């Protein structure tokens, strides 16, 4: 046994083994059904919580495990083993996207009301930024929060919200000045209730997740639910982007590994022209390229992760990792599908789902084009 690849240590590998065992026992067997039903049950959250998996990086005082981002990284990689991108996304949206801003920017009261039950799997969170008219272009958000006695009245519409149907609260970006833009956006934690209407969207992949359009019609939000500073929402968005993108890179790394292993097994077994597929040179070389791509993705991601946990704020490395891994993961899945031939096109095999799920990577969490824009600036171009 070779030692764990830095930044991971033996302790992380133990967590990995136990998370993997739990996932393969409790979640993976249901993946196919959840995908078909386009919904994974809410009970998944308390189940994960009972294993401590919803609060790995959060302080014990809030019910967390007192670990750090590396522990969370292990979980993210292992969630690829569920075999349902939508389920992993729903869990990920809760753990990696919706709750970190509360942990980092929330008041003690907000942490007690939202973070504690979220870690316990009792309340499910979502993050609401994207709108029908504003995707990559965050500065042009139009959901408006008008000040009123004791809080705000919110009107507007958010879309592509993961957990958008099941969530109990939405960490929502709103315009708190008429102009909006970089200096006029704030975050409100909005509880599900009157005036909050969700409608589920059908997607290419991630079928088990309830991606939704959520509209707010005269929703009152009390001032205690302002998250972070007034008009300082842009900073909050930026603060979590690095982790969200790193999480996507880690998810891709995990998924690529499993897909490669399964496809290699298939190629060793499947016979064509009197011998295993893997003994055909074109297929063998293809699989070698894919293994190299998976290894490259892992190295790039781990380097960014190392820097991130060391406190470097590695904007360049994280952005590159996100850009590189998402495209590479989809291309690997697509190649695995191709190697499966006709079977690859059929739903009863795992691979077409993996390809559909992976296709979100170059779009979600900031599209490839946005990654290149960021890198253009980082590289002084």
């Amino acid at each position, binding site marked *: 046994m070779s030692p764990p690849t830095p930044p991971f240590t033996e302790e992380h590998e133990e967590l990995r083994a136990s998370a993997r065992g739990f996932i393969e026992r409790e979640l993976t067997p249901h993946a196919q059904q959840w995908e078909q039903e386009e919904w994974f049950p809410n009970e998944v959250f308390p189940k994960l919580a009972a294993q401590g998996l919803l609060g790995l990086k959060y302080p014990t005082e809030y019910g967390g495990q007192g670990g750090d981002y590396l522990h969370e990284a292990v979980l993210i990689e292992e969630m690829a083993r569920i075999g349902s991108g939508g389920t992993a996304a729903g869990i990920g949206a809760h753990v990696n996207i919706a709750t970190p801003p509360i942990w980092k920017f929330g008041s003690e009261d907000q942490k007690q009301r939202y973070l504690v039950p979220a870690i316990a799997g009792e309340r499910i969170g979502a993050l609401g930024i994207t709108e029908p008219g504003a995707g990559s272009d965050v500065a042009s958000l139009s959901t408006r929060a008008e000040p009123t006695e004791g809080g705000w009245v919110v009107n507007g519409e958010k879309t592509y919200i993961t957990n958008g149907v099941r969530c109990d609260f939405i960490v929502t970006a709103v315009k708190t000045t008429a102009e909006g833009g970089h200096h006029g956006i704030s975050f409100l934690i909005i509880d599900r209730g009157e005036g909050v209407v969700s409608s589920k969207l059908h997607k290419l992949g991630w079928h088990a997740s309830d991606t939704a359009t959520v509209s707010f019609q005269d929703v009152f939000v009390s001032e205690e639910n302002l998250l972070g500073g007034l008009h300082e929402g842009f900073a909050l968005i930026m603060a979590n982007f690095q982790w969200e993108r790193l999480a996507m890179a880690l998810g891709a790394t995990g998924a690529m590994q499993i897909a490669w292993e399964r496809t290699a097994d298939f190629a060793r077994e499947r016979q*064509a022209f009197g011998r295993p597929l893997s003994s055909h040179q074109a297929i063998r070389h293809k699989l070698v390229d894919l293994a190299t791509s998976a290894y490259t993705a892992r190295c790039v991601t781990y380097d960014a992760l190392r820097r991130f946990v060391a406190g470097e704020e590695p904007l360049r490395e994280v952005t590159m990792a996100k850009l590189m891994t998402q495209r590479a993961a989809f291309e690997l899945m697509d190649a695995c599908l191709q190697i499966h031939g006709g079977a690859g096109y059929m739903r009863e095999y795992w691979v077409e789902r993996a390809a559909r799920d992976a*296709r979100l990577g170059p779009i979600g969490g900031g599209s490839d084009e946005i990654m290149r824009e960021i890198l253009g600036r980082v590289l002084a171009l």
Partner: protein
Amino acid sequence: MAATAESVLKPDFQTSRKHFIFTDEHEQLRESIRNFAIKELAPHAEEWEETTFPDSVFHRMGELGFLGLDKPEKYGGQGGDYYTSLVLAEEITNANSGGLGMAVAVQTDMAMPPILAFGTEEQKQQWAAPAIAGTKILCLGITEPDAGSDVAGIKTRAVRDGDDYVINGSKTYITNGHRADVIVLVTKTDPDAGYDGFTLFLVPMDAPGVIREKKLVKLGMHASDTALLAFQDVRVPASAVLGQVGKGFYHIMWELQGERLIGAAGNVAGAQKCFEKTLQYAGERKAFGREIGKFQVIRHKFAEMATKIESARQMVYVTAWRFNNGEYPVREISMAKLHAARVGCEVADECIQIHGGAGYMREYGVERSWRDMRLARIGAGTDEIMLDVIGRSYGL
């Protein structure tokens, strides 16, 4: 027309796109198929993704003469040239339903040509004529659970028994397999004869022992029905043999050429539609204060796509011209099939990317094109098989 000082002042982007293989008659046919597809098919496309399209589509297309465009008038066809079939493959994409286009192509350009080329007069009357009229539906059985690209590895056996043959085996990924009245079935009649041991049969789908095992659920092409079929002691008379006993492998290799070329034409047309839809989106959708099409990177994506589509289209047309002239250009057909399939998938993928989050959502229809198009690199011979055929054509 020679260039003049006057005519070179401005490039003419509106110049007629009509290729030299097409006449005005082809263009009229194009318009009539397009109108039919837009008016009678496209409005149901969403619904048919859930239910598969109804058999009545075949009846209607038969009525309109669209199922026998290039087939002999003797059997109810229109007696047109090969290009008329190409026009159908291109324009049927306006139905907005990849699964429907594929099912029609199985009828007109995959299962029917071997019947007309190798069939007896009786077989042509019994199956081709009603198929052209749209009253009978055809399917083609090549692939098996253990033999896909490796066609020679098929195991379905037909054993001579007196005046009959008894067939046992299974076929999978059979388009139209649930609705078809007859299957053009590839079997092995002599396991020791290598490539000379295959025979085609016309097996009625209601023959005892033909079992439609299950409807297969696919990544895309949801409007088509795809079957896993079993044949258990299916007894057919010797008159059900299609073509020559022992020549089935060569018959089917010939059939695959037409299938691949027509498929390539459909893929190019599908890519073009996806391109146009996305072009419209890029002209409307704004980000960072302008239409996204005005960003250089997006503009270049369109330029790349258009260039790829045009290259694939020209390959298909020139190869079709050779085919229509009576050549048997296997290398060029394989190249056109490979290139058009890749271009189709690349274009659909780029169209999703340009749509961003919307591209991933079902309501915009781009993800459907992407799912449908993905079959092109697998069906009718995978990319890898095309590469093998092309490579071997150079003696390698």
